[in-house]
């Protein structure tokens, strides 16, 4: 791996984590007043902001309307200052339109869209700082925002990335680990049922290792769901204290 040792002999990673350890997660819900739901999340140095509008009447072309469920509209963008090099196009290139598509797909699977026929739910996500695991940060932030908006979901959707180095699966990759060209897998999970809403993997990995890698990513997702759950509970407690009188 180009002179960079991702896993030391003692079994620690570049930033001193153990292979299955997640980065520190901090999150807040209800950061904006205008939006129906909003959330901010930090996973290590990756920072993401998600905003949800809806469910509302379908805007734009009427032809998009679905008679039996809601349309989910996602937009993913990266702030121009989010990466080491200044980004020229915050959204609209191939990679970010792919990311928007994946977000849409993840939430179509998780949100109970059939409860809102002929309506639309908008999810806008922005990466403020990018340090690996952009997809997972976006999904986690958007989950919190959807919950904040009060839109029913089957379960929390938690996403996490995982890599594979020297026969050891690494959970929650940072930028240095992701850009090394090794295997990286992104997985969105509904933790309670163990169903996979999205699975994506890049770079070569032998078929025999797939099982352990998916298992590691699923464990990481379950860990994340506990964190998200505590964030939601704390938020509700704060809100209920404020509105008691």
């Amino acid at each position, binding site marked *: 791996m180009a002179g960079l040792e991702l896993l030391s002999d003692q079994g620690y990673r570049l930033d001193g984590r153990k292979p299955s350890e997640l980065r520190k997660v901090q999150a807040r819900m209800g950061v904006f007043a205008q939006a129906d739901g909003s959330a901010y999340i930090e996973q290590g140095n990756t920072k993401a902001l998600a905003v949800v509008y809806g469910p509302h009447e379908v805007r734009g072309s009427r*032809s998009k309307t679905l008679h039996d469920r809601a349309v989910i509209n996602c937009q993913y963008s990266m702030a121009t200052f989010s990466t080491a090099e200044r980004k020229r196009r915050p959204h609209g290139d*191939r990679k970010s339109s792919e990311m928007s598509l994946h977000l849409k797909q993840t939430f179509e699977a998780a949100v109970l869209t059939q409860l809102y026929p002929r309506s639309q739910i908008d999810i806008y996500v922005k990466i403020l700082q990018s340090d690996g695991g952009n997809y997972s940060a976006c999904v986690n932030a958007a989950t919190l925002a959807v919950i904040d908006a009060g839109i029913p979901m089957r379960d929390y959707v938690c996403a996490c990335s995982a890599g594979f180095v020297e026969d050891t699966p690494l959970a929650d990759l940072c930028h240095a680990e992701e850009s090394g060209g090794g295997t990286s*897998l992104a997985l969105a999970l509904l933790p309670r049922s163990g169903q*996979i809403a999205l699975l994506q993997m890049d770079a070569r*990995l032998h*078929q025999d290792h797939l099982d352990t890698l998916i298992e590691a990513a699923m464990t990481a997702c379950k860990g994340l769901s506990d964190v998200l759950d505590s964030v939601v509970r704390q938020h509700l407690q704060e809100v209920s204290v404020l509105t008691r009188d």
Partner: protein
Amino acid sequence: MRETPLSNCERQFLLKAIEEKKRLDGRQTYDYRNIKITFGTDYGCCIVDLGKTRVLAQVSCELVAPKENRPTEGILFLSLELSPMASPIFEAGRQSELLVKLNRLLERCLRNSKCIDTESLCVVSGEKVWQIRVDVHVLNHEGNLMDAASIAAIAGLCHFRRPDVGIQGDEVTVYGPEERDPVPLSIYHMPICVSFAFFLEGTYLLVDPSEREERVMDGLLVIAMNKHREICSIQSSGGIMLLKDQVLRCSKIASVKVSEITDLINRALENDRKARKEGGKFGFAELMAVQRITALKSDEVSIEMSDGDAGAPSVAITTESPPEVGRVPSPVVRAPGAGQVGESLENAWGLEQLEEEEDQPGDEVMDEGLEIKEENQRQEKSKGEVVVISDSEEEEVVILNPKTQVKESTLHASQSQPQSTGAAKKKKKQQKKKPVH
């Protein structure tokens, strides 16, 4: 144009069939359609037929400045186009969701898995490198574009030769094919995509979905793999919920399919190389000579009739000589003495070529299986198991030179022209037995 929605009736029929583990084209759950790989006269030009899905890949190269952060690496550029020619639902020049998805999948399958050695494409570090460009065009959309595109792209890359380059001091010379033999790219491995369609909340899965099946499926899982059983890319799409075991099972199926397809590509490359070396015929023009341009051409498929026979014996009607499925009566009414474009009449020229084509071993290995099935089916037909209900009570059957298998067999006497001396005329009365109650 917007896609015409599938009627509820047809949707239910398709899903019911899948539930009973049957497919409209008679395939098994894990079967691919016939794959045919054809190479063009130019290096790096490849057409892949997957059933009726047809995809063309053309590889080209040019000298460009390298990217700043990677001065010693050549560039692999992939681009897939959905032209309105392939299907009326594709609009020209519009970035549809499907297009973004296919392009990114192809990119991740080929570029991110590092299937070609990009460092060997460097000419002068930091100044000039080769950019290899793969243009994939969808010519006909009959389902499973991704697999066809990935096969076409990798076969095109394997087939491609770039011009040789010589460096003397500061001078860089690009040699034409007359001066020096062009050099092939160095390919590390051949990633091939295998698509799995999921139906009814992920209960049923099918390999290589056809266009109809794609329209009723819940979601798709694409696994790209090489024959060393290394997974190069996985992508799930559509709002499906997968379980881990399903993914693992799919990866096992994919490894089998990929090794078969890799062998097929290698055989096709070998055949093409041999044909070029011997100075024989190669290229599309030669290989496609036998294909006629008719819209009504339909391939014969073996149809499972066991259940139908048992279920409805009362409606079974046997005819003495059922018209074969492949021999559709020509709708063209020929005026005497008028020539037809694309509708060749008896042509003695093509016959020798046709025989040559069939002699080539390996090239159409996949077709052999079908041939045998066809044989079986014909036998079955002669036994009278197949039910054909024809409208006309009387039909004139004209068999023109039965040895060479002329396609049209049913023409009305008034329209049929006197043909070559070998033509035999037969009159047959089709009898319809009354249903036995």
